[in-house]
């Protein structure tokens, strides 16, 4: 399959990104820099504000043990504990990589739009992504529900809750965690997404005890867990 998304239009609204509209490619602004303090989950519960690190080159193997090996390597200090700010950089293999806060207009986050807009590779890469979800009260028996292209590992408040392996497309509620408590205050959702080639994106939301989307929550990337 041709990695069509690489040829697809890439643009985001913020100055961080390189507009290719001037190069004759249609604009598809699914990503932009946040303009508000918080971003409520959308009507279907999808989390639409994320902090994403510029992609790290990896070998792109997607079977279980290869993904485990890729994710287990420490690329930068505190990679599964850090709460980065927009614009912060880390050094991976001697190269600086920057964290970017983005809002998506869609249910998903298009990582082709993200990376290609920054003139970064989208094949054989690892993306670290993080969001901070604020809940007004404890929500017991909730579940984190994600879809990813391709393999991914997810943590909620420091505990691994989902792992998806092999080449795959983003399907809503593909990987669903066991029952968790979404705690009152700030909850940290962190993901490592590995792409081999072609399209790459992810989506995430929380489900309640009856498998219905949780909508009364919001993302606040400036908050402190």
């Amino acid at each position, binding site marked *: 399959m041709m990695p069509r998304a690489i040829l697809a239009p890439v643009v985001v609204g913020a100055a961080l990104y390189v507009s290719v509209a001037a190069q004759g490619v249609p604009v598809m602004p699914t990503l932009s820099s946040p303009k508000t303090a918080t971003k409520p989950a959308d009507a279907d519960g999808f989390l639409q504000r994320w902090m994403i690190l510029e992609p790290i080159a990896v070998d792109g193997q997607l079977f279980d043990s290869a993904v485990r090996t890729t994710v287990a390597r420490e690329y930068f200090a505190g990679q599964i504990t850090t709460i980065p700010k927009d614009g912060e950089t880390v050094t991976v293999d001697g190269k600086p990589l920057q964290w970017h806060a983005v809002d998506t207009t869609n249910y998903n986050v298009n990582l082709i739009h993200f990376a290609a807009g920054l003139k970064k590779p989208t094949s054989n890469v690892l993306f670290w992504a993080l969001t901070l979800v604020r809940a007004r009260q404890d929500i017991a028996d909730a579940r984190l529900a994600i879809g990813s292209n391709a393999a991914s590992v997810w943590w909620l408040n420091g505990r691994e809750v989902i792992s998806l392996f092999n080449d795959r497309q983003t399907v809503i509620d593909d990987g669903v965690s066991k*029952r968790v408590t979404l705690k009152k205050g700030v909850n940290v959702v962190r993901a490592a997404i590995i792409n081999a080639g072609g399209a790459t994106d992810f989506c995430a939301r929380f489900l309640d005890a009856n498998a219905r989307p949780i909508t009364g929550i919001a993302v606040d990337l400036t908050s402190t867990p």
Partner: protein
Amino acid sequence: MKATLTGAAALLLAARVLALDGDVGLHDPSTIVRDGSRYYVYSTGAGLPVSVSDDGWTWRRAGSLMPSMPGGKPAPEVIARGGNNTWAPDVMKVGDKYFLYYSAPGTQPKSAIGLLVGKTLDPQAPGYGWTDAGPVVWSDGTEDSNAIDPGVFRDPTNGSLWLTYGSYFGYIRLVEIDTKSGLRRYPQRPPINIAINSEASIIVFREGWYYLLVTHGSCCAGANSTYSIRVGRARAVSGPYLDRSGVDMLRGGGSLFLGSSGRYVGPGHFGLLDLGDGVQKFSCHYEADLDRGGVSVLDIRPLLWRDGWPVAGENVVAGTYRLESVRTGTALELAVEGAPVGGRRGGGRRGGGPGRGEAAPPIPSQEGAQVSANWPAGSVETRMAPYLLQAQQKWAVTPVANAGGSPGSPYFRVSVAGTERSLAATGDGELIVAPMFVGAPEQLWRIDQLADGTYRLMPKAVPGRSTAMALSAIGGSSPTLEPFDAATDRHRWLLRTP
């Protein structure tokens, strides 16, 4: 749906249908009724034999009804209208009372149907006892009717109560019943003829249709009995009941619902057992169970519905299956790194490509014994994935002896085929595959075929929880356990040929 039934039929070739357990020898069973924690069924024989089950799978004889009556036999009025025999009863709870109708034939077609009224079916319960309310309907021996084989029906559209009855010698007849007394509501009105050339009639209702199920053919000849269960439907309880070909059952119509098959000959005497949550079963007897020396036995099977008609489902048989989610199309698997059948190509990257060139020798199927040594020891998580014919995706479903069961089926062990690794419920309402099967309640699985031919899988118990839970495809790759909801595809599974 069609594929599901075809697949199930194919599996029957490889494994015998399971029969009920315990003492299931009986003839002309009533509708099975649950009272308290037990299931009860009454049948033809001296004093109206009673059979009881705690779970609907293992049955035992519990004496008979008539000894609790004065003189141990039908009331004199019943005997006068019919005779001394006690055959083919039917029972229903109406309000706070049970109405038990029974056949009291003399020299057929001189027969009567009597009524017993009681408050409980449990002989040990306070207030147990039956009152003989006398004859309800009868045939005088000359009319075109033989008043036996009662079938009682409560119309859910208006709460009215009806009784069908009859055998050969004429018509299957319908009368309305008074819900307070259990006797005829309008005794002065003539009965309504609704079918002919049949017996063991009973009506069920579904989605605007009244279905009349009857038994055609002859009974009581062992493996030479031609009994079969037939059906027609009508928009009104009074008919006309037409079969799938449009033939009126008053003219002998009746589409086949269930005939002889496997090791069972001559099914008859349909009874609906609605377990709620969209799960329906039906009871019947077979004239001859070849595995029990050709005696007549009770059975309980799934009741399916297709294109507005009832379909006799099959209880699950032992075999190896893939468990495919109706919702996601993905298959339940042990969460281990799969080994591609025939070996890995392309290093796991995209673009490894299909095999090319000349045809190569066949690739053998992948079995658990070949690859399970590479799997982690101890308990392993479950997940779901596209079915790739791999060993961790094939499940051996095996009945567990002496562990009880549910109406129609024993509990099953569900293990990765070729291994001891067995699916189990965990205390947090999730799933695990334990390294061994130890027979614990969380490892015993109840498997019910649902009305659409798909299946519901439920552990006998979830540790620490009192609520029953069912296997759920809550995500495309993520199974869990949830309280069963008949309205969601998350809880529907296909048991398909691996």
